[in-house]
């Protein structure tokens, strides 16, 4: 099986936020929840870089390790998903996540946390594939349709790559060799405990 990963080539990201918009629209993500976001570091200074970040679907995922109700599971494609019927909205996954991926609707007591929502790698959840129940809880399931995540698919500069880790690493490697320098496979060291060898 493939080992699905995201790879963000910060050299190419132009902070158009199309990935954010595509994600929100595809999954009808409610107001206040951002499964994907673009963060700009060194804004307005030399060396400005924008990085599109969502759940990186970590190897040895910290969210799964700390979850008090054990609601996370990893698919055969190494996509980290969770069961919203089991989630209690305690917020522990947000404390452990290095990327700030888990999001919580403010529906709990005193406007605190409801059930956690995060990037599913367009792979839905534990409900039957592409059912109405799955769509309401997790959004569309493109993986079950043989498609890759929409954010990466429609990235205009192809800064954001999604797919099998080896394949996207090879694309990035060729880019780096061609242009002569890298921009870092953002989050790889933290999420996968490895980086792209050039």
């Amino acid at each position, binding site marked *: 099986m493939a080992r699905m990963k995201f790879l963000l080539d*910060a050299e190419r990201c132009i902070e158009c*936020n199309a990935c*954010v918009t595509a994600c929100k629209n595809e999954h009808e993500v409610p107001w*206040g929840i*951002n499964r994907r*976001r673009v*963060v*700009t*570091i*060194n*804004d307005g*200074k*030399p*060396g400005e*870089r924008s*990085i599109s*970040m969502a759940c990186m679907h970590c190897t040895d995922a*910290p969210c799964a*390790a*700390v*979850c*008090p*109700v*054990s*609601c996370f599971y990893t698919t055969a494609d190494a996509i980290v998903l969770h*069961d919203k*019927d*089991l*989630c*209690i*909205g*305690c*917020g*522990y996954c*947000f*404390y*452990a*996540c*290095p*990327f*700030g991926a888990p999001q*919580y609707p403010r529906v*709990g*007591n*005193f406007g*605190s*946390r409801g059930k956690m929502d995060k990037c599913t790698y367009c792979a839905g959840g534990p409900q039957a594939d592409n059912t109405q129940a799955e769509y309401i809880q997790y959004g569309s399931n493109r993986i079950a349709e043989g498609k890759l995540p929409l954010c990466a698919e429609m990235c205009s500069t192809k800064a954001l790559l999604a797919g099998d880790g080896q394949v996207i690493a090879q694309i990035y490697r060729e880019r780096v060799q061609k*242009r*002569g*320098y*890298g*921009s*870092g*496979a*953002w*989050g*790889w*060291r*933290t999420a996968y405990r490895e*980086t792209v060898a050039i």
Partner: protein
Amino acid sequence: MRALILALALILAAPMAGQAQTAPQVSGTPTSPTPMMPPVADELEVLKALQGGRVAGRITIPDQQAASLIQPQGRSWRDFHNVTLAWVGGIAVLGMLAILVVFRMSKGRIPVEGGLAGRTIQRFNGLERANHWMVASTFIILAISGLNLTFGRHVLLPIVGPEAFTAISQWGKYAHNFLAFPFTLGIVLMLLLWVKDNIPNGRDIKWFAAGGGLVGHGHPDSERFNGGQKGIFWITTLGGATVAVTGYMLVFPFMFTDIAGMQLSHIIHSIVSVLMIAVMLAHIYIGSIGMEGASDAMTTGQVDLNWAKQHHNLWVEKEMAKGRGAEPPASARAAGAD
């Protein structure tokens, strides 16, 4: 501070990037401070420049917490939650239970010396008792639901199954969110009601030196509260205040603090809580099955006179001097009235 370090890294990097690269557009890319490394704006380099700190930037969505790009501290928090807290909590709670079992086996139930007098004296009034039980009942529920968050996944989940366990944990979360308020109110009232009798003094040192009459022999002098009870009082009020303040940080996420503050709040909240649970186990034991006559103080509020003389001799003397003597039992009749 982060911005400052990042800016510093940039200043260091700018001249090197210019010479090392043929492509002009990378000039100014943040690089490793080591001149031998090629200039890259990758995760490792930025993390290095920030000395393993949080990488944050600008964000265009309203949620400013999302501006934090990578926070490696999540790993430390994970280690705390899964390893440190589990061990500290496990040892504190199970260790205290073991100590109590050993204590019970070796010393047995602590009797009232000379037997019960049959005459009682008022120890706690209705307000004091009601407040004690408000704090006690909320504390027990908070303690059980809190322990469930740390240990339930390993202990209860395999027994009851995921759906039932989620239902239990969900109720535990609601209980935590709502009972926090009566608990805090009770802690404040408790402080106001009892602080005057709980100021530590030299007598407490003597009480502890004598082992509180539990370990050694003889009964050290004690006023309304002995050294051990004063300890419980201050652990309850100061510890309770600590868990309350850190707890409100957690109930109202990110209202008062950022991700680092949330992690710290959880660390303080959970460690103080498990230690308080261990202390309260001892308190519950000695106040119920561990000592003859002790539970009356918090149930009827009337304690046996001999119990009071044994454990709080100076307090009894004071009460007697005030004319609040021991009341005879309801069945007693005046001598010669038969």
